[in-house]
């Protein structure tokens, strides 16, 4: 006998969502009972210092009266314990809660500010494969051709993508550093490249598989920078692995070790729209090594 428990759970979740939306549940009561399940992170441990002890080892350097002094201090401490201990416990609770918040802020900051990181050549070879380049050219080579004459800057995608776009008649160039004697080219930092390009100088920009490798702060800057580099009528293409495809990995690092987060096409579209480009068109950019890729294409409008 087979029972699709997942389908029943999905029905339950949908029913609960519907009833929540309809206001069927006493929200105030339920909110009060929410329980936060949190996995303890692997932090550095200065935290032990946050614990305030209400009693410490008693000692005296005096030779003769030392024991009496220690005894006296011990008696004094016992007498005051009813007052001191609760204060120490309160202070400890406060310290620990403060530390927890500081750690949370540290983690959030790290997520936002993580700078561009290079990657190994072998990892790049996986996502710069010729098969993926062919699928990419099929997905958006035509749009780049339609942009007309002018240079198209290709960021990511590897030499195979540049070669294939060139074969289609696109004047494609990469900013990646030339390949050393052994191994592929070294991947450029897309943000620093785009911010160094003269305004309105390009007819096309391709950001291939790089957005998931940027920090959120960088991702917010890279699309406006690409937009500024495009002339009116120039085409911007952003592609990336689809988080929800049938072959999706549990974490984007399964696609490429330097990918830190999924960036779905909806997010890319929002970034493009907010940069003032034409409404983006999302398309399928092929399936390579079990991973589905998407492409988002937009154009810089004429003033």
């Amino acid at each position, binding site marked *: *006998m*087979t*029972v*699709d*428990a*997942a389908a*029943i*759970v999905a029905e*339950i*979740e949908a*029913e*609960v969502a519907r*009833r*929540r939306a309809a206001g069927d*549940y*006493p929200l105030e*009561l*339920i909110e009060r*009972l*929410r*329980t936060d*399940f*949190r*996995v*303890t*992170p*692997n*932090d*550095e*441990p200065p*935290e*032990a210092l*946050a*614990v305030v*002890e209400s009693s410490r080892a008693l000692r005296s350097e005096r030779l003769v009266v030392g024991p009496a002094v220690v005894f006296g201090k011990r008696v004094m401490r016992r007498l005051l314990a009813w007052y001191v201990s609760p204060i120490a416990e309160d202070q*400890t609770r406060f310290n*620990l*809660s403060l*530390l*927890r918040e500081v*750690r949370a802020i540290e983690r959030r900051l790290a997520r936002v500010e993580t700078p561009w990181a290079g990657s190994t050549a072998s990892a790049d070879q996986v996502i710069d494969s010729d098969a993926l380049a062919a699928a990419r050219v099929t997905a958006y080579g035509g749009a780049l051709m339609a942009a007309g004459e002018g240079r198209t800057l290709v960021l990511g995608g590897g030499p195979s993508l540049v070669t294939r776009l060139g074969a289609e008649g696109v004047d494609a160039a990469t900013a990646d550093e030339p390949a050393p004697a052994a191994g592929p080219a070294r991947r450029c930092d897309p943000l620093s490249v785009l911010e160094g390009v003269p305004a309105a100088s390009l007819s096309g920009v391709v950001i291939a598989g790089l957005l998931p490798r940027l920090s959120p702060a960088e991702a917010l800057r890279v699309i406006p920078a690409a937009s500024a580099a495009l002339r009116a009528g120039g085409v911007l293409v952003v592609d990336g692995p689809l988080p929800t495809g049938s072959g999706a990995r549990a974490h984007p690092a399964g696609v490429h070790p330097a990918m830190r987060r999924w960036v779905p096409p909806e997010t890319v579209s929002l970034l493009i729209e907010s940069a003032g480009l034409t409404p983006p068109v999302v398309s399928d950019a092929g399936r390579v090594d079990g991973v589905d890729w998407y492409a988002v294409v937009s154009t810089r409008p004429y003033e």
Partner: protein
Amino acid sequence: MKLAFVVPRYGTRIVGGAETLVREYATRLATAGHAIEVLTTCARDHTTWLNHFSAGEAWESGVRVRRFPVSTRRDQAAVARIQRTLDAGLCIDPASERLWVENTGASQQMFEAIDLAADRVDALIFAPYLFASTVLGAKVRPDRSIIIPCLHDEAYARFAIVKDTLRSAAGLIFNSAPERDLARRLLGDIPPHRVVGIGFDRPERVDPDAFRRRRALAGDLVVYAGRREGGKNFPLLVEYVALYAGALSRSGPVTLVTTGSGSVDVPESAKRLVADLGFVSADEKYEAIAASIATTLLSVNESFSYLINEGWLCGVPAIVHADCAVTCNACERSGGGLWIRSAEEFAEALDRLRIDQDLRRDLGRAGQTWVLQHNSWHAVLARLEDAVRSIVQ
């Protein structure tokens, strides 16, 4: 084979998944003709670690049991201080980790016995990962040590001292595939390992009606059996049951029947909804389960669940927490249970099981089929013997 199991506590009245698992493994392997001994402490209570049993040797169900006194007197203040830091979601330094571990029933005499036993048995098998008997004991002769970690995704599993012990063992035996995946996430490369699991026998005769009459219980029941403590999310279960009765149910309240160890500190308003049976016999536990609509386990720290498997043996579906990979995975693979992550989903799942008898029967049967196929003792012991042989070779 000659095997020595090392556990912090051992005995028929010791409550705990890993302790029960080792007792079952040891007894059944001895029955199958293997020479089995158990090295353990004299402690019965894992909160005080006081020496309760007499030190020395005894034969229990064909197993040679050697008990050693706990040598480190538990420093409750130090443990409380460390625990407070861990509970706040923060980490502790290596010295505090060691102090914490040493306060979990360390026995110097047992460590010496482990060293002596290592050369006359085929393997030393330690369980679970959390206590001094394993964290320090498996370091005595790591080359001869196999650990059944019963790993949970919790702060202790991130202790450097724990990771070091697990990494240096000759091999690991897991109870489930999600537990193995957790070990990989925590440790990176892991030593040679196998997934073995826990076996179950079909209960011979279960009379749920007699249980209801004997305990004077009417109406629909749900059951929780195990340690009644925060770490198992038992308070959350009580809250959900109370909330279900007070605000969310479409079919009236249910009674939560609960058995096992730990104090059941139930709010006054929920007392009428909870039937605390305390420690009961295995037969009565099965009767309580068979009399229930569902087994309910909201713990998010499980390496394996006896309760939901025992429920399936009785044809009773399970309700588990969606944040527990192990129980959730078991329910999904077997089709024997539902997983929830809020009071509303708990209520919706329970309402469905109460109203739709076909659904309840189908889930229960699917779970029963699965547990009989995968977790019969015959299959489990064969996997265990194979795992030990492959690791020690």
